[in-house]
């Protein structure tokens, strides 16, 4: 029984004015060339040719692939100009999930920061927490104990596996292979079970904090990891047989939405999209952070830079992450899981009853938060979608003065107009799914 009262008057109309795609005769010539895919400085003659080939205005139709759409992975809104089935122009309109997280981040202390940033990329929450914590530790200039580094690597690689499995599931469902959704989720539940065992939550863990991790690995965590390492490889082989031999799957992905390495670099694209063009750049290998230089794994690179390559790169990256998880399992050192610096880490609960300083430290850290020296730092890590960076400018107080997160999906979305130019509407769905944007981190 719903009480259907009429719409409150202050609910403005949904039109977004100048943010929307305007019809082609209105916009200036340069803007029209840019939106016709000439964004990356193709030569004047090609630009003119693209201009002449442009179709007369009344034959095309501007439609909305709007915020509430099954295949836009959240609340991405695309305005497409279609000529029949072919997409001529596309303009992503974002902001429908803008949560003002960067502004909220400025009101939270450094200890509370991870809870806020972990909700940005909700398919791989541990990565944003890691970027935030690494930046704060660089500002504090402290070294996290060995065991904390390896725990962080183990957990983030496990989170990369669950994020890529989410991609497998939604990519399959977007292209019609709905059973892929079931398999993808079945494996993802396995990964989430391990994450829940360790951090206590399935998502938004708030597990990686400045100074180390929230809690040590529970005893018996090794069988959880081993169990996952046994069942995942043959399940991934099932994906191969389910999808790769299907002519429909190949035709929907091969040759669709291809991009070259030069265009990726100009657009600032990183991650699986950049690697699918054959350009091998992976922060874990090229600018190793934490202990990635003591772990050997392969960087997977595609050949044509189309949707099929991106799917293959992500599928192979799950295997690589499994390799890293196995090495983390073997090399997990003993010792503290959190830095023993009194100013940063709150004392263990039992100590509070015994000593006065522990009580004071506990009280100061949890009410006022620890102070970070003045300065600014930018640390970037390799998240499943690309380079995830966190820039913090601190003014010496216990709250970041400015906290900006460089979200890979925000930049990767700029390839959409470029990839979709000249493709079909059905390919548009495949392209969005292959870019794999997470709107939480796009809109922040």
């Amino acid at each position, binding site marked *: 029984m719903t009480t259907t009262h009429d719409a*409150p008057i202050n609910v*403005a109309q949904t*039109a*977004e*004015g*100048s*943010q929307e795609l305007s019809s082609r005769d209105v916009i200036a010539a*340069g*803007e029209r060339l*840019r939106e016709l895919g000439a*964004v*990356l*400085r193709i030569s004047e003659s090609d630009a003119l040719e693209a201009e002449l080939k442009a179709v007369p205005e009344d034959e095309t139709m501007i439609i909305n692939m709007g915020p509430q759409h099954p295949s836009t992975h959240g609340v991405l809104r695309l305005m497409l100009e279609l000529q029949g089935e072919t997409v001529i122009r596309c303009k992503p309109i*974002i*902001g429908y999930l*803008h949560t*003002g997280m*960067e*502004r909220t981040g400025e*009101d939270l202390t450094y200890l509370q920061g991870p809870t806020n940033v972990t909700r940005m990329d909700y398919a791989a929450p541990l990565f944003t927490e890691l970027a935030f914590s690494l930046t704060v530790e*660089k*500002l504090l*200039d402290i070294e996290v104990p060995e065991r904390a580094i390896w725990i962080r690597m183990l957990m983030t690689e496990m989170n990369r596996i669950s994020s890529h499995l989410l991609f497998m599931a939604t990519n399959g469902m977007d292209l019609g292979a709905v059973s892929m959704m079931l398999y993808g989720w079945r494996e993802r539940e396995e990964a989430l079970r391990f994450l829940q065992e360790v951090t206590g939550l399935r998502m938004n863990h708030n597990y990686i904090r400045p100074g180390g991790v929230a809690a040590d690995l529970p005893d018996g965590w090794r069988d959880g990891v081993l169990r996952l390492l046994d069942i995942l490889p043959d399940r991934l082989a099932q994906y191969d047989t389910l999808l790769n031999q299907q002519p429909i799957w190949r035709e929907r992905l091969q040759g669709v939405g291809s991009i070259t390495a030069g265009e990726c*670099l*100009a*657009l*600032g*694209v*990183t991650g699986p999209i950049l690697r699918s063009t054959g350009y091998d*750049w992976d922060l874990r290998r*090229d*600018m190793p952070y934490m202990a990635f230089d003591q772990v050997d794994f392969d960087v997977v690179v595609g050949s044509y830079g189309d949707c099929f390559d991106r799917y293959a790169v992500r599928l192979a990256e799950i295997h690589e992450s499994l390799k890293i998880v196995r090495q983390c399992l073997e090399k997990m050192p003993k010792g503290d899981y959190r830095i023993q610096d009194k100013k940063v880490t709150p004392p263990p609960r039992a100590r509070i009853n015994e000593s006065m300083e522990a009580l004071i430290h506990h009280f100061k850290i949890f009410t006022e938060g620890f102070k970070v020296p*003045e*300065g*600014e*730092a*930018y640390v*970037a890590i390799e998240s499943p979608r690309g*380079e995830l*960076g966190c*820039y913090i*400018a601190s*003014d010496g107080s216990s709250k970041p*003065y*400015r906290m*900006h997160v*460089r979200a890979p999906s*925000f*930049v990767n*979305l*700029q390839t959409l107009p470029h990839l979709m130019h000249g493709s079909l509407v059905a390919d548009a769905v495949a392209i969005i799914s292959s870019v794999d944007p997470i709107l939480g981190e796009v*809109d*922040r």
Partner: protein
Amino acid sequence: MADDDAVSGEADTLLEIASETMYDMLLVHSSGQLVLHVERTSYVALLATLHADGYHMIVDLCGVDYLEHFDRVLPDGVVAERFEVVVNLINHRERARLRLRIQIPESDASLPTAFNLYAGTEAMEREAYDMFGIGFEGHPDLTRILMPEDWVGHPLRKDYDLGRIPVQFKGAPANRS
């Protein structure tokens, strides 16, 4: 404009401690990372030099509002302004990162766009415009990107009210209809 000696910062830090320069800009080591303080006027020229030197990707461009923190640590010779645009570049061949900090006065909060050299900055500049009101001359489509079109004000400015609704406790008069 800058001679192409491309002197890397490390080489001459040992020699003259006073003020190092790289591409003729003031170089600072901020927690282990290279930061260049760039004048607004020579920003685009520097980008062209950097692009030629292998810094072919702008990773991140964001605005900062230093309204409440004018007395921040800045190398001498740099006038502290209210706004600051922070640009992070990366050089894949030398695996080096570089950060540019550009002071933007509040009176004329604008900066030439980097879109012509780095096409990836289009959305980042729109976000800086949307959140801070920093205009970018020559930007192909300078409109709001995150806020609704009819939104008044720039939310990430320090003098913008956070819009926090006081938490209502039981029995407190709820202002909701």
